[in-house]
């Protein structure tokens, strides 16, 4: 996916003017955050669980090579295959080669952010395959040729009217008189199409919420059950997962699962939680004959040991998006690449470079809500600041801002000059603004006054008044 993060400001402006999007975002506000709060209130040990989850992921990351190799050995022992892919291109090629090997035509896909990261659908289509998304939200945006706008609810930016419109445009057998105004009717319509895809698919591609080193299992959570049909019905299953998804033990996976759904949707557990180990065994009733895991690095191993290593604890629950006031204002597409919101603003520059993405870490008030709700206690604001430092050090940022900061630092570093300059400035502004108490417009302050009045200064600085009064006291 071509990044559009470099036009973040314009993307955001368009998003703010997009009425259906704004209506969808407003509806979304009252959902997950409220349910998460309720779920956590029902679990007094939630904070202790967060500490446990953090410790599990830290331990896994500290010995990532060992756990990944252990995972590989277990997958192989179960009859599966593991492919180590350094970057997106290698992962795409491996998937395409496997699909060719399987003689595939139709490929079902369960929701996978790694799939988005490596743009697997485009690559498969270009190679002559027909990939079909089976998660309802992903299916809808695939019809519309859009990217997900949220990491767990990819079509959250759409209204049900827009969805009905897309179904009518793409489902040729759908009679025009059939009503599609209710979500259930749309669900039935999508299900009828997807059933056919499940039954004809030759290869099923899924992501993984976790990989378990101890058992060689992959863990998938969904609320629709589509991932299970994607895994079990085709002849070949391909799991695409990034390397930081590994946890040491089954017990560890259980701990992380307790955090995941509560943080994401406010559920105790997702409706379906599936542990899969290897291909179909002799006495299994169903399951794929061939089982492959793609282990994707794509820049993650570079993050280990550095200031962004803690980002690799992320379990993709989406809580930071759901609670971010900036995400809530502009939605996910404005961020311009695969991962939106606070986690995306840290991850995107790390994965595709800071050049062209430096707006992402800057477009935050650093309000800290993301860190507050993160089940893995990832210090997102600290990392956003680090990215700002990196961008500033490499000459990034608008020129007027850099010049302004330099001038400010020069003056603020010289208290006598600061007093002189500010004393004069507030005198003038105080006089000009005295009548109304505020400015509706002020040259050089349009970033402020475009949308709000600017209070006028009182006219004298505190320091000046304090010196005067204290002088009088003595």
């Amino acid at each position, binding site marked *: 996916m071509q990044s559009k993060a470099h036009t973040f400001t314009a993307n955001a402006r368009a998003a703010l003017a997009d009425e259906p999007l704004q209506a969808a975002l407003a509806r979304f506000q009252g959902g997950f955050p409220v349910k998460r709060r309720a779920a956590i209130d029902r679990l007094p040990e939630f904070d202790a669980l967060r500490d446990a989850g953090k410790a599990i992921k830290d331990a896994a990351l500290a010995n990532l090579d060992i756990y990944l190799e252990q995972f590989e050995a277990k997958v192989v022992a179960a009859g599966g295959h593991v492919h180590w892919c350094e970057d997106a291109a290698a992962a795409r090629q491996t998937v395409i080669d496997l699909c060719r090997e399987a003689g595939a035509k139709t490929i079902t896909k369960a929701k996978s952010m790694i799939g988005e990261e490596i743009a697997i659908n485009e690559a498969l289509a270009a190679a002559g395959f027909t990939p079909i998304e089976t998660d309802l939200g992903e299916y809808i945006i695939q019809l519309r040729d859009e990217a997900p706008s949220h990491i767990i609810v990819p079509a959250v930016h759409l209204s049900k009217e827009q969805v009905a419109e897309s179904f009518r445009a793409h489902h040729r057998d759908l009679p025009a008189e059939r009503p599609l105004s209710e979500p259930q009717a749309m669900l039935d319509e999508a299900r009828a199409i997807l059933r056919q895809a499940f039954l004809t698919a030759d290869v099923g591609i899924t992501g993984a919420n976790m990989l378990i080193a101890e058992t060689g299992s992959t863990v998938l959570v969904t609320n629709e059950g589509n991932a299970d049909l994607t895994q079990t019905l085709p002849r070949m299953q391909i799991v695409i997962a990034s390397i930081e998804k590994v946890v040491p033990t089954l017990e560890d996976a259980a701990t992380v699962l307790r955090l995941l759904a509560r943080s994401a949707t406010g559920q105790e557990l997702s409706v379906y939680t599936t542990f899969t180990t290897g291909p179909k065994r002799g006495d299994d009733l169903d399951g794929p004959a061939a089982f492959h895991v793609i282990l994707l690095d794509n820049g993650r191993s570079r993050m280990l040991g550095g200031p962004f290593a803690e980002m690799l604890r992320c379990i993709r629950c989406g809580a930071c998006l759901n609670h971010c006031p900036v995400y809530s*204002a502009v939605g996910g597409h404005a961020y311009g690449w695969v991962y939106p919101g606070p986690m995306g603003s840290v991850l995107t520059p790390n994965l595709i470079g800071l050049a062209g993405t430096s707006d992402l870490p800057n477009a935050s008030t*650093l309000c800290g*809500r993301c860190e507050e709700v993160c089940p893995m206690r990832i210090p997102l604001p600290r990392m956003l600041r680090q990215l700002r430092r990196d*961008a500033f050090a490499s000459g990034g*940022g608008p020129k007027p801002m850099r010049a302004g900061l330099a001038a400010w*630092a020069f003056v603020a570093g010289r208290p006598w000059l600061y007093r002189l300059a500010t004393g004069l400035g507030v005198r003038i502004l105080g006089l000009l603004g005295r*009548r109304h108490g505020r400015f509706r417009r002020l040259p050089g302050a349009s*970033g402020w006054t475009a*949308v709000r009045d*600017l209070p006028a200064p009182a006219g004298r600085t505190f320091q000046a008044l304090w010196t005067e009064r204290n002088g009088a006291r003595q």
Partner: protein
Amino acid sequence: MSDTCRHRPLIQPGVQVILIRMHDEQLTVGLFVTCLVDLMRPSVGFAAVKLLENAGCRVVVPAQQTCCGQPAFNSGASAEAKAVARQVIDAFRDVDYVVAPSGSCAGMIKTHYPELFADEPAQAAAVAALAAKTYELTSFLVDVLRQKPAAGTYPVAATYHDSCSGLRELGVKAQPRYLLSKLEGLSLTEIPSAETCCGFGGLFCVKYTDISAKMVDAKVDDIAASGAKLVLGGDMGCLMNIAGRLQRRGLAVEVRHVAEVLAGSADDAPAIGESDGKP
């Protein structure tokens, strides 16, 4: 004058100092004025001085201070931020406590100076000492001085905006509400978005004006729906942003720093962005 300020901090930079000062001498509090209070609204600074003096402290205002350096720090300009921060470290070396009428500036000194100077081990002790003795005003009054709410009268329907840094970096939430609790006539209605960022965010509000406007509108909508006629808070940045948007939208809701109301000095200055009626 109350004697609550006579509790000495347990750890002092020099035993002799403790021995000399142990007998009921006043605490010396250095007021970190903050640039916004200094330039825009001195009444908040004087209210803070009054509250601290009423609590028995001796207040000094080092003239060497300008800004805490946060605008540079949050822009990624570490060298510029450090230059300004060094002045703060020097200016407040000799006071017992540093108190700021701002969660944002206090948070900068307390939680971010150690990060800013992490690559300068020689500064570590001075930075840690400063961080340890720095407090946001209402937190200092309640958590350190154990002040009780003062009685008074302030009849108005109010609401409180929790600024992000104060709330999440310093745990300022109950303290201002506690101090306001004995003001007769003042009713405090909580808005659903009390803990949601108002969209100020320092330079964010001028760099990403449209997004900031959307955020402050959500806040202003909540305030309007609550029926409150006064918004209180502990940070001038947020308050100027909220007041400015309320006024731009023509909503008759006043905005003030909580220190002015607590000190009983609200009559000393018109509400933020309002005129004093004099020509």
